[in-house]
């Protein structure tokens, strides 16, 4: 588990949003990365997001995480994406 909780509420909320969709939290082990979020697909092809400890704009950083979660096709609440039809 990552050290403590993230200091920015927007980022904390985005991390919780990811966890609600089955994403896992991995300890970053120091540096500028607070933690790594991994999508439910347990392989190297899965999505991963590196959460900054001190993002310049926490709102934008949180939105980017949520956007990735929303488009992830491996979520527990899977999005069905079919082939484009004219």
């Amino acid at each position, binding site marked *: 588990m990552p050290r403590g909780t993230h200091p920015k509420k927007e980022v904390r909320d985005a991390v919780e949003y990811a966890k609600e969709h089955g994403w896992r939290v991995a300890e970053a082990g120091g540096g500028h990365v607070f933690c790594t979020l991994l999508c439910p697909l347990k392989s*190297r092809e899965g999505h991963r997001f590196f959460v*900054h400890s001190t993002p310049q704009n926490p709102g*934008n950083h949180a939105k980017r995480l949520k956007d990735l979660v929303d488009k992830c096709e491996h979520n527990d609440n899977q999005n069905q994406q079919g082939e484009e039809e004219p």
Partner: protein
Amino acid sequence: MKTNSFRIVFDRDILGKTVHGGEQDELALANALYEAGLDDCSFLIDGGEPCLDCDVENAQSLKEAVRSVLRRISKCGKPFRVARLEPGNLVTPSEIARRLGVSRQHIQQLIFGLRGPGGFPQPFCRVSDKSAVYQWTDVVHWMQAHQYLKKAEIVKNAEEMEKLNRNLATAVMA
């Protein structure tokens, strides 16, 4: 405050080739980007591709924002190679609708001339018998000519992004 948002997709070769080595390589890359001043960007792996989602404030144009990020990346000390910039120039009808904030049905009606002046741009290609792909620059020029666009900068940004992508063949990040 104006924010220019875009994505830089890196060459997958920058990631570690082994499963175990890969995780530490990715953390090292994320830290290197932050230390190069890219704290206004988010490093992530999307569909196996290493990406940098950027939200750059205080740049005069999209081109300036992209160049600002590329300059900072070049100072990372890591062998980043840029594969492409997004949003790209090839779009499906669904993507056209998403970018313009309208329904897919609305775009389909424009494409088939059921609404509007007709003469929607010809597809750039088809990825299957039914799936057409268009050039975003063609679409926004047509939209602008028929007064469908609310923001004129959409055309400028489309042209700038397409030009930046075409120039990437000679861009090397080392």
